[in-house]
């Protein structure tokens, strides 16, 4: 096996913050002698990603995801540590390096706001020196997979969020980059648009073998796209491995919400599920909540018992949000791995 395309070793980034004092007198003191504090946003992060892999880089807000991504794209210089992508150091050889990468930063568009979409693509063609033949072929692929042909001649400001995101993805891939960085690519999209984006990413990866690193809050993105996940919390890597492995460690927790016709106590509901490993967490009156683990008990079994035992009007199942998965990982390990 040849060396990995993307290599990160001991990556660390500190921010200097000014800590404000309280009140008027505090404000005056701040003017003369500000209290500076060092915040370590990314702390000794190391990993390797071989060419063609799709990796989910996940963590709660403020965990250090975006900071890492900024260093990988060459926008931010680290305090210490090394990154090489295909032999280049992102922040040192920025112009060289950025020719080979594409990036989509969630809500921030890289299309020219006041101009028709196609003007932005023509500009990108010039920026990356994409020859006409490749340009036409790529645009054909994007139209097939993303249906962007219909609004190429509309100004960007008139597009819906979903349409804009599709254009942004196409814009990031026009020059056939080797690495694609995605920061929250499905944020704010409806179910259909999300599915479109995911389908597109899968196909483009198979077609071009592009290496994809994405951050997300959406567990669906990860389940459908990534075999491998890296979990970061408080700037440190807490998990780096197969998604399956992660599932095995924390299980598949599901939260169940039931609405009843008549009021009931938690104890009464607990009686209906009986010996099943279901934990009734909260609720009184008509609405109750429970948690169980799909690896221990199938959802259908829980629901069957419940419907038989109580007059259920409505119920819903929710996957455990990614923040809680991260918290569980943290709790299991107790302390971050050195």
């Amino acid at each position, binding site marked *: 096996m*040849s*060396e*990995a*395309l993307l290599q990160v070793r001991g990556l660390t980034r500190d*921010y200097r913050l000014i800590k404000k004092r309280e009140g008027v007198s505090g404000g005056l003191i701040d003017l003369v002698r500000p209290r500076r504090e060092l915040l370590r946003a990314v702390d000794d992060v190391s990993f390797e990603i*071989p*060419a*063609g892999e799709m990796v989910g880089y996940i963590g709660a807000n403020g965990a250090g995801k*975006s900071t890492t991504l*900024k260093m990988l*794209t*060459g*926008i*931010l*210089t680290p305090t210490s540590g090394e990154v090489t*992508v*295909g*032999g*280049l150091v992102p*922040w040192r050889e*920025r*112009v*060289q*390096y*950025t*020719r*080979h*990468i594409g*990036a989509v*930063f*969630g*809500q*921030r*568009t*890289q299309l*020219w706001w*006041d*101009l028709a979409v196609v*003007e932005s693509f*023509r*500009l990108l063609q*010039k*920026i*990356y*020196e994409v020859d006409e033949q490749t340009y036409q072929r790529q645009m054909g692929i994007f139209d097939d997979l993303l249906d962007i042909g219909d609004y190429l001649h509309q100004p960007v400001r008139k597009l819906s969020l979903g349409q804009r995101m599709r254009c942004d993805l196409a814009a990031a891939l026009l020059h056939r980059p*080797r690495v694609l960085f995605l*920061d*929250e690519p499905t944020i704010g999209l409806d179910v259909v648009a999300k599915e479109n984006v995911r389908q597109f990413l899968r196909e483009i990866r198979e077609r*071009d*073998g*592009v290496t994809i690193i994405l951050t997300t809050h959406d567990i669906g993105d990860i389940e459908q796209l990534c075999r491998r996940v890296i979990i970061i919390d408080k700037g440190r890597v807490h998990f780096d491995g197969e998604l399956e492995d992660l599932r095995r460690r924390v299980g598949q927790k599901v939260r169940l919400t039931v609405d009843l016709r008549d009021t009931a106590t938690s104890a009464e509901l607990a009686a209906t599920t009986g010996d099943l490993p279901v934990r009734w967490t909260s609720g009184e009156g008509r609405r109750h909540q429970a948690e169980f683990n799909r690896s221990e008990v199938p959802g259908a079994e829980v629901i069957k018992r419940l419907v038989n035992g109580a007059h259920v009007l409505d119920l819903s199942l929710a996957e455990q949000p990614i923040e809680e998965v991260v918290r569980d990982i943290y709790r299991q390990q107790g302390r971050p791995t050195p």
Partner: protein
Amino acid sequence: MSETTTSRLAPWRRSAAGSVGLYSYFVRLAFLKFLAYRLRYYTGVVSYTIFVTGHYYIYSALFASAVADSPDGLVGGLTLPEMITYVAVSWIGRSFYFNNIARELSRQIQEGEIAVLLIKPFHVQTVMMFEAIGESGFRLLMFTLPIMVVIVPLFRIQGPPEPMLYLWTFVSFCLALVIYSQFNFLLGCLAFGMKNIQGVMRAKMVSMDFLTGVVVPFTFFPLWFQHLMDWLPFQYVSYIPVTIYLGKHQGPDLARVLLVQLAWSVALFVAGRFVWQRSVRNVIVQGG
């Protein structure tokens, strides 16, 4: 494909033809962008005419009262018709070289939009320079020319003493555009280090027209101030191009001021590149 399986990124450099294509495309895009907002400039024609009219009456009154004490009929080294021409040409020039790079750049830095530009394989400073050229191209056609059509006959503005000075004045205003945008670029870079740059922007808005000589010609100021301005780039934005038009620089002196202007353009561009690269290395792009 073998290209996608190697773990090395191929070396890449934009060709010279590619650079010309790219940067001229930015000129074109900026032109189109401002064309979309052209209505805004029609009101500009009215307000510039009002500025010049105001100055016309102020200086007429000033000359009427001051000319009695000055046997040669000069006030601040200029005759009244020269003075009116000075005002008109400096505003006409301003309609051409003006841009808002400082505000635009500082906004992009503070809102984190700069990240989108930093992940592109080009020099942000060069791109902004060419966008400024595109903007000024638009202004020349849709703003400067209409203003000239209104102001020149209205105030019976005289031509320069020699026809060649039309050309040199235009060249000088083009260099003024470089100086003005590069100074703005440097000012915008301050946003990397400052949390709030609105105050600086306001101070710039107020002082710029004063320092460049648009509001009052330098000859009205005390000598020490004129000497101080000799060491700064501001007078090359407006005072020098306008005095070229008035024929105040002849022969070798004309060559000299144009060369100094060129030197300032280059110096500010180099300074911009230096400051930009240093700032980016220490950059903290705000927000996600």
